[in-house]
């Protein structure tokens, strides 16, 4: 091929005849990657140019931009790719509609070829083309007689299977092009998985080149990818059909960089809004958000895409911003062109804040007092008052008891369970900073009676289970996948998993003279080996460094790191947990499913919450206060036209189910009935039950956590038929109404039916009945002789309304 060389110092390449696509000029342009580093003759780097407009809209203008290489003796640009010409440094100047920017270019070993590498060149082919996914050759038993490790977690094993497991079959050293692995993937011979790529494509060439080189294994110490970047970092696409190309760049342990766009596997969280092609071209679809990810080696990286209808006219309404939470929530809403709902009424706020902070409904007096209060900061006053109540801490003890699996069993005595519960109650009631008691918990040593916190290590004795639980509860990570293979959709590798598990290998447990008690201590010995190759794993913080553990209590070290600012996941995860309690939806949802492929709906908000929580010295009460006093928490559930389809950006309040314990307490409260739970006095509240084993029909039906696992899914909030039937016909309503005899008492107090009706409404719904409701119900009451019966029926009816059953 001949390339005509332009005379002059620089060659100017025009990608396409530029046609103006935007009447208004962009405010800036960005070129990705921000620096171009090309190594070896095979090196290349695709570049993309993104134009950013005043309204935040971005456009991929790579094809329209004018791109100039400062020194054609160093690099050239062919098909949007920077290719090496000679060693040295130069730069690329990019110009688009008057905006310019420069990108430095560094070319090394421009004429030196890089030998083909199994791990760097061949293994990514299998990932990119889906060969080693779970449904195909990545299955535990392989597919059609050939197995590859799932997503390539075991490249050495894959090398063996390709070259030497079935000798003479999978690769052909004599005629590389006729290797079975080549013929199958190119569809030259029938392949159950179909044709994966064509003859002449990069994948084909690299695979053949590797076989031609004799199918070599990589020399020891070959560079490994250490990080992966996905560009651009975000995009706001304007209208269906607009596109944005992505590029993926990997950094290696030897400092080199490679454009791995053609080797990365692209995924989108929402195909209907942003569909990504196998080559990384995102095409905008319906209005919405899409998190587009690229997977390469063990890394998954993602960028958020927002898709708006073409030329949408939008202006953000005036919305109160009470604190940083509102600022960040609104910022995201502005990007999405969503208007938040209005602030809720006092009545709605009262009921909502009571349920959320105390797990109770406001009493009639509390209702009246609050409604009568005319001060501007009455909501703040109420919050302050409620947070001092013991019900507030009881609600959070319940929450943590679920996560810490406080539950008696054949192995764990009731006494130990109670002591454990009391310990937790004490910490939360005294508002001990979260990091302190978490450290105390995870580093605990001693007898389960003397130091009940050690029950944490009695409840679960399996090393790997303990490892997984700690990661899931305190960091929100589900790392279970990495026990057998690198996590397919997250950053966790088997090395990370077993490195973290190594902190829990030295838990000593011994019996005392009391058979119900167990002593947990640091045994000082015990290691864990990597299941592949059996190498001993040094303790490594999950996502952190490898500390010196010689002669130290490993759990102590781990606890110190985990509940500290050094752990980037602790504060954000706990903030998210608190947030979820008040919004019914996590910023990352589920709250214990933090992973790259499940990004936060508002990353800035989550980071800020974590930052504040750390600044508050892990005083979670302050965090709660910030949240409940924000306008975002106090939004109405009434949606407007722009936010009715939004389910994750907190543009309106959500209608939430009430968890089993609180719901039972509320029913007991309004009907003035008492409950009897084992081990608790008559009239105790369901949230006070210490032992997870204790339950009753109501609680079980309404999805009380069994505390058998740490999963956030333990608390079931899904409606069931038995719940409805129980409320309609069961003893939860009818019998309690009779038993509590509220109506009887009120009638005895000579209250009129109207007053009684008002009381029922305020008690249950924290509002007065509407005129319409009043007229209709009173008509029925007046027509009936037995006032008690008909009013009790009205009471029953209110208890069965959805308005009562939900927190809204």
């Amino acid at each position, binding site marked *: 091929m001949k390339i005509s060389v332009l005379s002059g110092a620089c060659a100017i390449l025009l990608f396409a005849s530029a046609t103006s696509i935007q009447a208004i000029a962009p405010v800036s342009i960005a070129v990705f990657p921000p620096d171009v580093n090309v190594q070896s003759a095979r090196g290349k780097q695709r570049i993309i140019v993104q134009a950013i407009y005043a309204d935040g809209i971005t456009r991929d203008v790579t094809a329209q931009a004018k791109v100039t290489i400062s020194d054609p003796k160093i690099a050239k640009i062919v098909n949007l790719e920077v290719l090496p010409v000679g060693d040295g440094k130069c730069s690329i100047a990019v110009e688009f509609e008057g905006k310019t920017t420069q990108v430095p270019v560094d070319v090394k070993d421009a004429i030196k070829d890089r030998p083909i590498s199994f791990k760097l060149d061949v293994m990514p082919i299998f990932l990119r083309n889906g060969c080693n996914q779970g449904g195909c050759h990545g299955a535990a038993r392989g597919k*059609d*007689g050939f197995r590859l490790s799932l997503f390539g977690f075991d490249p050495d094993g894959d090398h063996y299977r390709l070259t*030497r497991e079935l*000798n*003479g*079959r*999978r*690769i*052909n*050293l*004599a*005629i590389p*092009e*006729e290797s*079975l692995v080549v*013929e*199958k993937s190119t*569809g*030259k*011979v*029938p*392949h*159950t*998985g*179909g*044709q994966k790529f064509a003859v002449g494509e990069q994948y084909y060439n690299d695979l053949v080149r590797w076989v*031609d080189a*004799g199918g070599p294994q990589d020399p020891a110490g070959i560079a490994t990818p250490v990080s992966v970047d996905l560009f651009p970092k975000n995009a706001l696409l304007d209208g269906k059909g607009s596109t944005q190309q992505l590029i993926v760049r990997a950094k290696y342990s030897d400092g080199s960089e490679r454009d791995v766009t053609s080797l990365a596997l692209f995924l989108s969280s929402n195909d209907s809004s942003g569909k990504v092609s196998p080559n990384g071209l995102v095409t905008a679809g319906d209005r919405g958000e899409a998190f587009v990810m690229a997977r390469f080696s063990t890394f998954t990286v993602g960028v958020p895409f927002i898709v708006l209808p073409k030329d949408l006219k939008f202006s953000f309404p005036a919305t109160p911003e009470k604190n940083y939470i509102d600022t960040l929530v609104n910022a995201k809403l502005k990007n999405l062109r969503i208007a938040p709902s209005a602030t809720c009424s006092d009545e709605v706020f009262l009921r909502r804040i009571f349920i959320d902070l105390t797990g109770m409904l406001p009493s009639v007096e509390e209702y009246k007092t609050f409604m009568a209060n005319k001060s501007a900061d009455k909501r703040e006053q109420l919050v302050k008052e409620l947070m001092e109540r013991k019900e507030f801490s009881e609600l959070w003890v319940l929450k943590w008891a679920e996560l810490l699996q406080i539950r008696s069993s054949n192995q764990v005595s009731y006494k130990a369970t109670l002591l454990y519960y009391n310990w937790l109650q004490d910490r939360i009631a005294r508002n001990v900073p979260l990091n302190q008691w978490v450290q105390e918990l995870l580093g605990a040593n001693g007898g389960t009676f003397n130091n009940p916190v050690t029950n944490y290590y009695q409840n679960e004795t399996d090393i790997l289970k303990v490892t997984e639980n700690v990661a899931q509860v305190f960091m929100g990570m589900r790392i279970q996948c990495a026990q057998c293979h690198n996590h397919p959709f997250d950053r966790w590798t088997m090395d990370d998993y077993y490195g973290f598990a190594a902190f829990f290998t030295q838990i000593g447990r011994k019996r005392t003279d009391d058979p119900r008690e167990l002593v947990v201590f640091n045994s000082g010995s015990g290691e864990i080996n990597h299941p592949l190759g059996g190498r001993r794993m040094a303790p490594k913080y999950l996502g952190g460094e490898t500390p010196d553990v010689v002669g130290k209590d490993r759990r102590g070290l781990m606890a110190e790191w985990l509940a500290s600012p050094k752990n980037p996941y602790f504060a954000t995860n706990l903030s998210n947990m608190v947030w979820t309690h008040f919004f019914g939806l996590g910023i990352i949802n589920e709250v214990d499913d933090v992973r790259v492929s499940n990004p936060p709906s508002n990353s800035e908000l989550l980071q800020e919450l974590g930052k504040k929580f750390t600044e508050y010295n892990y005083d979670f009460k302050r965090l709660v206060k910030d949240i409940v006093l924000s306008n975002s928490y106090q939004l109405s559930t009434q949606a407007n036209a722009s936010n009715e389809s939004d389910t994750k950006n907190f543009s309106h309040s959500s209608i939430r189910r009430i968890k089993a314990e609180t719901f039972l307490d509320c029913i007991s409260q309004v009907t003035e009935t008492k409950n009897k739970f084992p081990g608790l006095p008559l009239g105790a509240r369901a949230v006070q039950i210490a032992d997870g084993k204790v339950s009753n029909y109501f609680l079980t039906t309404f999805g009380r956590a069994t505390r058998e696992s740490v999963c956030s899914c333990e608390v079931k909030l899904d409606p069931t038929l038995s719940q409805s039937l129980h409320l309609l016909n069961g003893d939860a309503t009818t019998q309690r109404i009779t038993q509590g005899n509220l109506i009887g008492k009120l009638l005895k107090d000579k209250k009129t039916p109207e007053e009684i009706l008002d009381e029922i409404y305020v008690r249950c719904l924290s509002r007065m009945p509407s005129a319409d409701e009043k007229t209709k119900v009173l008509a029925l009451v007046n027509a009936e002789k037995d006032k008690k019966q008909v009013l009790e029926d009205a009471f029953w009816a209110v208890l069965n309304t959805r308005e009562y059953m939900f927190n809204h």
Partner: protein
Amino acid sequence: MVRSIILLVALLSLATQSAVAQPSAKKINYQDHILPFFQDKCVACHNQDKKSSGVILNSYSKVIEGGSSGIIVKAGDPEGSSLFQMVAHKSEPFMPPKSPKVADTSIVMLEKWIKEGLLETADGKALALNKPTADIALGTVRRGKPDGPPPMPEKPLPLDPLVVTLKGNAVIGLAASPWAPLLAVGGQKQIVLYNTDTMEYLGVLPFPDGFPTVLKFSRNGGFLLAGGGRGGKNGSATLFNIKTGQKVLTVGQESDAVLAADISPDQTRIALGGPSKVVRVYSTVDGKLLHEIKKHTDWITSIEYSPDGVLFASGDRSGNLFVWESHNGKEYFTLKGHTNYINNLSWRADGNILASVSEDASLKLWEVENGTLVKSIPAHAGGAQGLVFHRDGTIVTSGRDKTSKSWKSDGTAILTMEPLTDLALRVAVSHDAVFAFVGDWNGNVVAYKLADGKKVDVLPSNPPTLKARVELSAKEIVLLREQLSKISAELTTAKTQDAKLQGDLATTQKSLTDATLAVKDLPAKIKQLTANQATALALQTKSTSELKAGEAMILASTDSLKKIKEQSDKNKLDAVLAKNVTAAQEKLDKLKLELPALQKALQEKTVAYTATVAGLKDAQMKLIAATPLVPALPKQIDAMQKAMPAAQALVTTLTTKVQDLEKQIGTKEASLQRYKKAQPLANAPKS
């Protein structure tokens, strides 16, 4: 170089394409056009084993029969043929699934075939049965050496390989003729033959169906069975007549490469298997399928008939091993023990023991009377691969530990051969059990002397072109000649040295004899000489005293004469006195006359004495000299005698070497002549 191979492959594929394109003059028919297309795209699922949707596409009758939802092709009506509709992406599900639409030319071809009435063959006649081109079956099974000369290729085979590659691929097809010096090596779409006596390249047999993965000689060495194919596409087993080098029969329509195959000792049946998990037994009389054995749960990896042909054994990828009755395909034994891929099976010549090797690293010996495991030996760490139970009872195995080992028939180890640089995959043993051949991962066959496990030669599975071979051969001859002249010179030197050594030994031996004799005789002689010396001394002493006495008498006589004379002078006239003077004078004179005699006698005696002294001294010296020689010389002789065999051996070795080299040169020259005379392929690929 790589490029040239790619070019070559491109050329080859061009060649095959044109071969396919050729019959386009013919009408589109199943056999020539449609089946190859189906094999490319469809039969991985639509074969007799998987039968996806009940559709089987690699058999004409089954295509016509249709699938579980009725007919799939309707003669003359492409629109009514669901097969066409799906392939042309006119109705769902599109076929083949998960792949782009097939090339338009193929769709047009398919449409034409249907329109033209679904012809099976070009002439529209049903395909003739797959009849062998010669009688293969034997009347009886004959064990032991067959009559007549061992079968070798009688006609020169094509020497120019059909496929030339720079490198070979892992050798998994390897077999040696039981009676003839013939080795067959699975190469790239061809089988490479070598002479196991001379290690000479004999030529190639074409295997265009793909890659030969299993090779087996018939028990009389008259046929070579080659199983193989293209992975994921097609598989079959082809029988070659060794004498003619011609294909006589091809059986099997597998949808993946055949991995295991054998021909029964009576040559009436061929059993084969592969990834289909089904063992299929075909008749060699008419090529018909006789039995299908579906007991295996994984890929069939090894099959071998017992020497009497009554039974045959088959092993699979999961380690299942079964013995079947040949005549009906019924199960005879399940041999439980292996836990992984069975790589090879081999029967002992008497048929009582079956040996098996597996990826579970073991060599197992099974007794076939009751189907019990006799012995399990951890033969090759990482996995045992190759196995031969030779007629003479020697077992040879190879494995992932890169070594090959020989064992006695009871499983006791004999020796481990020099290791290879990569996996040792398959073994064969020459007809005379002199050489073992090991196929390796790099595509070579390494020849070992079975007796000492030493490497003797390397036979590539990727032979070069005829032209390259001629050049190479000529070069080799030059090298060999250089070597010959060098070794000849060495031989001459060695011979000279040997001769010298022999001469020296003779001399030394004579010295020893002499010395021994001297030590034995001299003491007596010395004694005698001592006595002689004493005698001589006495005689000398006596003679001296006699002389002295004589001289004294003369002195006395002179004195008395003087006195007498004085007296006489005083009495001159005293006659008596005068007479006395005369008498005295006479006496003196007489005495004086006697003196010389005495002097002479003394002189003689002195000489005699001196002689005896010298004689004695001489004898004594001789004794002194001879005495140490007697013990010393035998050592020298011993050393010389010991040196002798080495010198002689060197001579013998060098002589043998010279002879070998001369023979090699002879062979090479003959081969070179053969290569030169051979017809190169018209479109010979270049390496």
